[in-house]
């Protein structure tokens, strides 16, 4: 079977009966089996995916198919799907089966998408290389000695290796955008509150947001439009109308934008010279296209990652209190009484990085430290959000690299947690400010590995972000530049 590059061209073939959903499911399940060594999937949903394919094929014949008919999509192992297992790639939830579907899954299925399986991730989405998973690391399909990024590493790899058309991941501090950068895919983190978190295993509840991995911007627009919007099961989701991201994907065509960049990002000491060079090159090209691109000051470079870690570990320590070995999940067989059931189940069920974060989170929330760390970080978060919003009073977008470098070698950073935390240097700002951000595959290093350029915009401006992203990819993706040359 030929490779498909977009949902629209799959749907063309489905409409002309050149291919069926049943064949598509078989094709992708075979590919997943063939490429098992990447370790992208924890489990494939062969039975339900095949059954859904039969249903969707029938609907296509009747002319009643939904807008996502034929979309073969994976979900990260922290997104609930009724009657299916999920584990947040932790021993703690091995064997756990969801009693209900997340809102995003409900909405995908309603529009006739087919969910092919659940993808490997860092344990409880805590990590930047997918190496903290109970199921082992995900390998980068473009170079199997390298990481796929994290925490949604399996999701990114599933799209990059063409094991499905698209993937849902979650992004707390960069967990969609950084793996998208490492695998040459398009990764979108929507505005906080744009997509319901009902049925997403919580990590940092004021940061977490579900988003997409796709091969192109159009598919991101189409899928996000379906999963976004108000939901009575999530009180933190916005009731704002969802704009027609897909239909109006060309709304920014030929429009001149005002774009800001931060010198402290582009010239950060940790940035790879090739990534810097390409970022500057794109800035120059945008100027030549007639866009206004200005250097803008950003005062919180040194505080953003610390703020992010204080707040997310605090939220995580509270969210992960529910894993007690009693109601669901792993229970230690070494326990003798109730207290030791809690303590031993948690100590044996959680991995090292998760325990490390629970400890830090508990510490910053404990008496005597609460104000110095937790309240302080919440105050700095307000400063970061306000100063980010101020930029958007004069600019449409902020441009930066997604990650300081291309994918690194497996095991290379495992033991240096601070270095690992700095992986998120360009991505955490969007989560702190609650704004949408996208990683676009616009760079290739001399190691032949891809890297992404990130665009951020103001809250709830996904339509504009997606439309401009499409323009940028069409103009500056390396393949289209080669074609022009």
């Amino acid at each position, binding site marked *: 079977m030929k490779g498909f590059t977009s949902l629209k061209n799959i749907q063309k073939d489905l409409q002309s009966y050149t291919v069926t959903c049943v064949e598509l499911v078989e094709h992708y399940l075979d590919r997943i089996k063939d490429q098992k060594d990447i370790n992208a999937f924890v489990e494939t949903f062969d039975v339900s995916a095949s059954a859904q394919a039969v249903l969707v094929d029938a609907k296509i014949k009747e002319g009643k198919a939904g807008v996502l008919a034929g979309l073969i999509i994976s979900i990260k192992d922290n997104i609930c799907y009724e009657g299916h297992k999920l584990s947040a790639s932790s021993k703690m939830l091995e*064997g*756990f*089966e969801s*009693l209900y579907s997340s809102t995003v899954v409900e909405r995908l299925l309603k529009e006739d998408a087919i969910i092919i399986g659940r993808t490997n991730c860092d344990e409880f989405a805590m990590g930047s290389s997918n190496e903290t998973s109970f199921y082992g690391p995900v390998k980068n399909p473009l170079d199997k000695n390298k990481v796929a990024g994290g925490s949604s590493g399996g999701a990114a790899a599933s799209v990059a290796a063409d094991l499905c058309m698209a993937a849902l991941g979650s992004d707390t501090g960069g967990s969609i955008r950084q793996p998208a950068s490492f695998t040459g895919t398009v990764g979108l983190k929507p505005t*906080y*509150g744009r997509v319901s978190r009902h049925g997403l295993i919580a990590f940092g509840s*004021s940061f977490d947001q579900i988003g997409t991995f796709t091969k192109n911007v159009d598919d991101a627009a189409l899928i996000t439009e379906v999963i976004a919007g108000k939901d009575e099961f999530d*009180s*933190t*989701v*916005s*009731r704002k109308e969802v704009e027609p991201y897909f239909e109006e994907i060309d709304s920014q065509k030929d429009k001149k934008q005002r774009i800001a960049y931060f010198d402290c990002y582009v010239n950060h000491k940790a940035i790879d010279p090739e990534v810097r060079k390409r970022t500057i090159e794109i800035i120059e090209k945008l100027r030549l296209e007639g866009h206004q691109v200005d250097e803008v000051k950003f005062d919180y470079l*040194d*505080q953003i*990652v*610390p703020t992010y*870690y204080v707040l997310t570990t605090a939220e995580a*320590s509270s969210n992960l*209190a529910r894993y007690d*070995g*009693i*109601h*669901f*999940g792993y*229970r230690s067989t070494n*326990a*003798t*009484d*109730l207290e*030791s*059931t*809690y*303590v*031993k189940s*948690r*100590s044996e069920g*959680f991995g090292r990085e998760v*325990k*490390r974060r*629970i*400890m*830090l989170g*508990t*510490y*910053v929330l*404990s008496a005597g430290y609460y104000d*110095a*760390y937790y309240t*302080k*970080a*919440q*105050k*700095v978060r*307000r*400063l970061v*959000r306000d100063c980010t919003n101020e930029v958007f009073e004069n600019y449409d977008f902020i441009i930066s690299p997604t990650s300081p470098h291309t994918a690194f070698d497996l095991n290379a950073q495992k033991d240096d*947690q*601070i270095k690992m*935390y700095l992986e998120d240097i360009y991505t955490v700002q969007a989560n702190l400010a*609650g704004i949408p951000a996208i990683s676009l595959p616009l760079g290739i290093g001399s190691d032949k590995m891809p890297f992404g350029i990130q665009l951020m915009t103001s809250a709830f401006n996904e339509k504009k972000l997606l439309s401009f992203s499409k323009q940028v990819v069409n103009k500056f993706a390396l393949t289209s530049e080669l074609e022009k040359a």
Partner: protein
Amino acid sequence: MAVDIKTVERIATLSKLEFSETEKQEITVDMNRMLDFVAQLSTADTEGVKPLIYMLEEEAELRKDEVIGSITQQDALKNAPEKDSDFIKVPKVINKD
């Protein structure tokens, strides 16, 4: 050092976690490194700044207070690691003697 073994033990108790002696040493080092790292927070001037707690500007909408039920007892028991036909089982909480 800001965090010593005693602090680690206290935080572990609060977190319902336990660590071996070697792990305690490791986590003491880890926590101190992380606290050094997040100490950069103190360099931001937050005089008069209110903490940011809720990310959404819209006011939360309350739903009607209606009884809609949730899951069945059987479903609730489904994922419990130890159970009988009606209850989740836990080790004895109170010993008679």
